[in-house]
């Protein structure tokens, strides 16, 4: 069953369309990659799916979450969905965590909010989640502040925070772009493991075709606000139909050839 579906999503700023007529759906265990260059509207689409577009942007179309149209819904209604049905992980794990709050409390926040857990239960759950994302010494680590963690560890915390309330859709907006290549590979492995375990549907956003291709089964290609291609990963990689997808595949192939055979996922 489709959990999250958008049809004809259009986002405009001062009359200028930034995203045009985007439609796709996510069902349980789907793994969809959304690829496109910066400025193509990928991140805006992601924010729109959470009802968090910056003020001043206008939207039209439909965003169905469990069959209910949320586009233009009041913030109250969106808040029930955010973190509980749809979660997101951002690109920059340092700025996405409050610098003054111990990471355990940050993971516990959504748990207390959505599941009404008390402080100690929520903290116990936060420790469990730290363990699930393979952070070392979880019981101690939950008391650390973000700056005391490495970039990869912070992204693990962000993942734990996003998944803590067992959402059914996880949007990962360039979650590995800010990390160096080895850490990137570890986070991708972890992400793979977590979505397999939890059955969460994944929308993986990136500009990096090899990274997306390693994780997604279905590929959406976006350019200047439009979806130019959509299909199973293998089809898009072997028989790209649009010019842009062809360019992407060609340039990715060039990079991979340079780095072959050991490194499959090349940074940029």
């Amino acid at each position, binding site marked *: 069953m489709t959990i999250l579906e958008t049809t004809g999503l259009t986002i405009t700023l001062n009359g200028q369309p930034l995203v045009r007529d985007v439609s796709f759906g996510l069902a349980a265990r789907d793994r969809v990659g959304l690829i496109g260059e910066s400025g193509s509207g990928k991140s805006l689409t992601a924010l729109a799916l*959470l009802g*968090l577009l910056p*003020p001043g942007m206008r939207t039209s179309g439909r965003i169905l979450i469990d069959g209910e149209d949320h586009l233009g819904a009041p*913030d109250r209604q*969106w*808040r*029930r*969905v*955010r*973190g*509980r049905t749809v*979660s*997101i992980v*951002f690109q*920059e794990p340092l*700025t*996405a*965590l*409050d*610098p*003054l*709050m111990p990471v355990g409390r940050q993971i516990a*926040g*959504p748990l207390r*909010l*959505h599941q009404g857990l008390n402080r100690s239960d929520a903290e116990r759950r936060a420790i469990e989640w730290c363990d699930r994302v393979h952070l070392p010494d979880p019981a101690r680590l939950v008391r650390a*502040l973000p*700056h005391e963690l490495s970039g990869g560890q912070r992204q693990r915390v*962000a993942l734990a*925070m*996003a998944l803590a*309330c067992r959402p059914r859709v996880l949007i990962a907006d360039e979650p590995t772009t800010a990390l160096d290549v080895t850490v990137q590979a570890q986070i991708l492995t972890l992400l793979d493991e977590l979505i397999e375990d939890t059955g969460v549907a994944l929308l993986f956003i990136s500009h990096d075709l090899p990274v997306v291709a390693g994780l997604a089964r279905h590929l959406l290609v976006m350019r200047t606000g439009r979806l130019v291609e959509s299909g199973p990963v293998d089809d898009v990689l072997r028989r790209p139909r649009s010019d842009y997808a062809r360019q992407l595949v060609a340039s990715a192939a060039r990079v991979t050839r340079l780095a072959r055979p050991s490194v499959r996922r090349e940074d940029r």
Partner: protein
Amino acid sequence: MSTPLVEAVETIEALDTPARRRRGWRSPSFVLGAALLLAILVLALMSLVWSPYGLDHTDPAARLAGPSARHWAGTDRLGRDQFTQLMLGARTAVWIGLASVAVAFVIGVPLGLLAAAAGRFVENAVVGVIDIVIAFPTLLLAMLLVTVYGASTAVAISAIGIGVSAEVARLTRISASRVFTQDYVLAARTCGTGPLMILVRHVLPNIWHTLLVQAALAFGVAVIAEASLSYLGLGTPPPAPSWGRMLQEAQSTVSVAPWNVLLPGLAVAVTVVGVNLLGDGLREVLDPQLRQERQAADR
């Protein structure tokens, strides 16, 4: 958004050198500021239990006397002991200073938070009000209030508090707006956190250190304002002693008894310099960014 102001804040933050950051609690400005303020505070608190003479005590035989063993700081033209006046004046200054800062924060912080959290319309409205209050001289406001309600401690506190609250509101709005644009606030919102929880969990913890430093500086401003009001006869009415009124009363006899002017003036100066140094030191100690970098440097 008032970009020049934000830039100014950032410039001030950029002026920090690593050497200044590491000093922390031992920084000379903090220690000196705390010592100066402590001296004033001790005078004020001591006056509650002991002072050389009573408030009403006059020594007609020793009018305009210079400093001596009997009158450490001399006497004024009515023969009142100046050190007693100074101690009791410290009490007035500290009390009105603290109360005005409290009023300023009770008004200013919620107003600033509201402006930062609400939409553009409310923000512009609040910023407009803030700008008007900042442009309106506090002394003039005090005069208006005194004309309507008569001179009293409460009126002085309200006038100073309202005057200072605009600056507090402005700083709160700027600091809070900066937090609101941070990714971690967006991340909190993606988890379904509502606006009130974001204020409590993320905004206040990230701005209180800035506000505390502002409170220290505002205290200095309030003490000067209180002295000015009393000097003009608009502050705490007699017989409650005040540094401002001591100055005003000593003015006519300044050629024969200059120490009578010097002492209250010095008291105001010590308080204000002390509070500014303390604020500066506090900022170095509390600023989370500086603190983190200090910890990183220690490791």
